């Protein structure tokens, strides 16, 4: 039984209209952020969710943790076989202990008016920990050590920290209650290469020690390929390719995946394989193209791509692609 099971998840946001246009019943525009995606995450694995801005990956991550209003979501998300959107208040509270998030922005996701020590203590307070103040403080100090911050950082404010330090506080906060699952939203973006490497090593070690499961959301293909066991590529709200990372990396089939992988520069003096340069821009999620959403930028598109939406189908062991020309 997978830890997380997502079935035909959909997240549509209505674009807010002015009072008058609502009165005159103008057609409300809908942002199709996530459109019928299905996948599961096994216990102990790192599942990479890759895509560029606006593909819906962050929305999908938040949906998994029920951080989106119910009226926006359709489909089913289960955690340990229980429907996340059917939790009662107390069940939801218990769920939150087990499923945490590390937010994208390292500094602004921390309360600027709280000291670091207070920020990491907060989860214990919210979840009514029965530990004494002293025990909690000892835990907080332990967490700081785990993420390689010093005890003196406890008394600093978030604005006094660097991006890398802020990220570590976010990680410490997410770990406080020993969760089972963590959504990591762009955990290394904006960080220097060497700091990035430290954070990645830290998270991998923690995963081994604490048997954590990660949903690793990122647009940085190189890093996601390195950390994840399985990977799903998203484009304009849809999963276009999914499978074991090594397999997808070695043998990308969807044209978008090919373009993405080719755009990731090879580091080195010698020239890598010729880069695929996509034409045009990503279409608006309000007006998604008919049929295959990628057809407007695909160099291989045919009339069928406009008429019929391709389904995500297996092309090999643990490798699925949504493309009429996959086979």
């Amino acid at each position, binding site marked *: 039984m997978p830890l997380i099971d997502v079935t035909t998840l959909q997240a549509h946001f209505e674009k807010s209209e002015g009072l008058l246009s609502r009165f005159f019943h103008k057609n409300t525009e809908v942002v199709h952020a996530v459109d019928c995606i299905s996948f599961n995450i096994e216990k102990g694995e790192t599942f990479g969710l890759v895509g560029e801005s606006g593909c819906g990956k962050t929305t999908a991550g938040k949906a998994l943790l029920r951080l989106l209003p119910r009226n926006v979501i359709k489909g089913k998300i289960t955690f340990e076989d229980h429907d996340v959107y059917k939790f009662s208040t107390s069940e939801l509270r218990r769920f939150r202990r087990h499923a945490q998030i590390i937010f994208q922005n390292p500094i602004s996701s921390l309360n600027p008016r709280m000291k670091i020590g207070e920020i990491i203590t907060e989860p214990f307070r919210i979840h009514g920990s029965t530990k004494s103040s002293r025990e909690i403080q000892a835990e907080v100090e332990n967490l700081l050590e785990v993420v390689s911050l010093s005890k003196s950082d406890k008394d600093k404010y978030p604005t006094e920290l660097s991006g890398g330090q802020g990220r570590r506080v976010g990680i410490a906060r997410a770990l406080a209650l020993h969760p089972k699952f963590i959504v990591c939203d762009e955990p290394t973006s904006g960080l*220097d290469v060497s700091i990035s*490497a430290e954070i990645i090593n830290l998270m991998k070690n923690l995963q081994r020690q604490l048997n954590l499961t990660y949903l690793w959301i990122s647009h940085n293909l190189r890093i996601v390929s390195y950390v994840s066991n399985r990977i799903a590529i998203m484009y304009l709200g849809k999963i276009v390719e999914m499978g074991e990372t090594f397999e997808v990396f070695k043998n990308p089939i969807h044209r978008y995946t090919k373009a993405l992988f080719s755009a990731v520069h090879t580091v080195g003096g010698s020239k890598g394989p010729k880069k695929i340069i996509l034409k045009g821009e990503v279409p608006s999620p309000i007006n998604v193209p008919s049929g295959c959403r990628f057809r407007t930028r695909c160099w291989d598109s045919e009339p069928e791509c406009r008429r019929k939406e391709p389904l995500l189908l297996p092309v090999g062991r643990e490798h699925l692609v949504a493309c009429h020309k996959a086979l």
Partner: protein
Amino acid sequence: MLLEVKNLSVEYITSEGRGYAVENASFKIEEGQIVGLVGESSSGKSTLGWSIIRLLPSNARIRSGDILLKGRDIIKMSERTLNETIRGKEISVIVQDPQNALNPVFTIHTQINDILSLYRKKTRKTKLPLLELFRSADTERKKEAVSLLTKVGIADARRRIDEYPYCFSGGMKQRVMMVMAFVVNPSLLIADEPTTGLDVTVEAQILEHLKDLIRQYGTAVLYITHDLAVISEVADKVMVMYAGNIVEIANKSELFDSPLHPYTKALIKCLPRNATQKDELETIPGSVPNIFNLPHGCKFHPRCELAKQICKGKRPLLKRNHSSSHEVACFLV
């Protein structure tokens, strides 16, 4: 020699103290050469870039050194000369967040037109075919702007040129910036992290267009970034900076195939190469020093696994190693 920088040092004065963000920087850029300047946060790379056109914050001071553009000393120039002949004329700039560089209350057309009309005035283009003389200068300039925007991949440019910056995506704004930077035909373009924060596929498009424009105009470029991978894509020559010092200069292939400075080697090793690599990533122990509290001797020695006694006493200077184009600042090489 297009640009020669000799022993440049820039100091910041703040309430926390004084510190050198750039120390004794020396390098050259030839005509049409693309030089990459790589470094992490607090390396001083942006400070170095902006000091070339003397657009530093008010609390920065150029304490020593020469900046010679085609033999003329930029440090000694008056603000007026800098504005009339250098900034936006001989030297153009494109920056990381084009959002903040474009004026939100003017259309793209107005902004490009401003530059074109200023530029034309400076060069006094007088040779025009008879027919064109009767067309208004405005129409001509608009035609030129539309054609340039189309060339950098903005679809439907004739209509879009009359839109405001908020209608453009990040990638498109960056393309507008590139057009504005190249249209004045500069000798040198300073690009400060122009593709950082853009999606990978957009970055790929922008870099292609940038390379085309560089080829077309023959402009030299100082490309500042923290991204080693982008540098290996774009640059001919690469300079690596650490805590205010240039620690290595080499041709791109030589830098990546045989890096000499321990910091450069460590930086290259920090990048995960691909999905097949399963072992732990290399990291650099310790952290970048605070410019108000720099170590004695070589600034990298506290984090260097090869550090010896000599490294703690004296600052190593950039010296040529074997080939004339490979320089490194390290006692142990």
